[in-house]
């Protein structure tokens, strides 16, 4: 009887819990390798940041010390996420906006200064 119980334990070790260690290793590796292979170097991120600040600054005065930019990883996707706090809209920007979006842009004018300051633009690039 004891022998049989031992055999059952032995069987469990084949079919039960312990099967997962190798499977877990494989699954964890699969995911981590997707992340490793899509990693973006700090140098590239710095160049992106500088150029993005350049473009955005043409239209908006931004709160540079509070600008956040980084790579966000979810289960199987990866995103470039930027949080760019706005101080105010520049005059040139307003002029440009007026030219291009007279119809759709009523939003901006109706917004109070404080509201605008705390509004954050968040973009995801796949």
């Amino acid at each position, binding site marked *: 009887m004891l022998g049989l119980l031992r*055999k059952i334990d*032995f*069987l469990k*070790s*084949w079919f039960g819990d*312990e*099967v*997962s*260690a*190798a*499977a877990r*290793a*494989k699954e*964890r*590796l*699969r995911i*981590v*390798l997707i992340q*490793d*292979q899509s990693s973006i170097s700090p140098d590239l991120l710095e160049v992106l940041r500088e150029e993005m600040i350049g473009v955005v600054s043409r239209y908006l005065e931004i709160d540079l010390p509070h600008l956040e930019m980084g790579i966000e990883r979810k289960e199987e996707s990866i995103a470039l996420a930027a949080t760019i706090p706005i101080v105010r809209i520049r005059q040139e920007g307003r002029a440009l906006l007026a030219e291009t979006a007279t119809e759709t842009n009523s939003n901006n004018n109706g917004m109070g200064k404080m509201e605008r300051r705390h509004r954050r633009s968040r973009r995801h690039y796949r």
Partner: protein
Amino acid sequence: MGKAFVITSGKGGVGKTTCTANLGAGFASMGKKVILIDADIGLRNLDLVLGLENRIVFDLVDVVEGKCRSFRQAMIKDKRFDNLYLIPASQSRDKEAVTPEQMRDLCDTLKQEFDYVLIDCPAGIEHGFKNAIAGAEEAILVTTPEVSAVRDADRIIGLLEAEEKGAPRLILNRVRKDMVRKGQMMSIDDVQEILNVKLLGIVPEDEAIVVSSNKGEPVVLNETSKAGKAYREILQRLESPSDLSLLPSMTDGSEGLIGRLFRFFAKAEA
């Protein structure tokens, strides 16, 4: 014209140096003229594994800096084979003392004279790695079935591709059949599926490796050890890559339910 292989892994401690020593001694026992280069400057060890640590006068840095007349003055002849030589790493310098161009030139020179040039690569992916792979036309990637080693191996595959070295061939080292069978350790199939490179061989975990390193005698020369047998199979495959009968074989637990049940009941009978 000989062939230059670099033995690399990314992660340290997976068996690069042992592997280099065994492939070298193995080729030599087959009558090939072989030279080993220890490219792990600052952490010299290949000399110790081969039992040649007391014979070093000049080293790799002396060769590339022209401190000795030619590489011939730095190379150490093996105790067992007249056709096996080692250029040891410098122990007092660092990896920056050598450049990839110098390594390429040295390997080109050595290939004129030797059938095989085997380069023992340091762990890591920095300057030492770039030096070690510079002169080799093919890489042999050593890994163990552990998550950290496999992850680093994947990184190395990417870097070798970036350096246009092509896909390496894989040696899966320190495999424990019993653990694979119980699902506790990744199988050969698991690792191969993740890394997606050609398998050169499987070396089982074997106490004989520790013993042979302690004695400074490569395990490949040990007729009875499991690891020695595995290395001899790898050598055959490197010698005749087209021979299909030489494909890596080792039961890795993928024998299926029937096989498992069969063996289980066979055990119960006994």
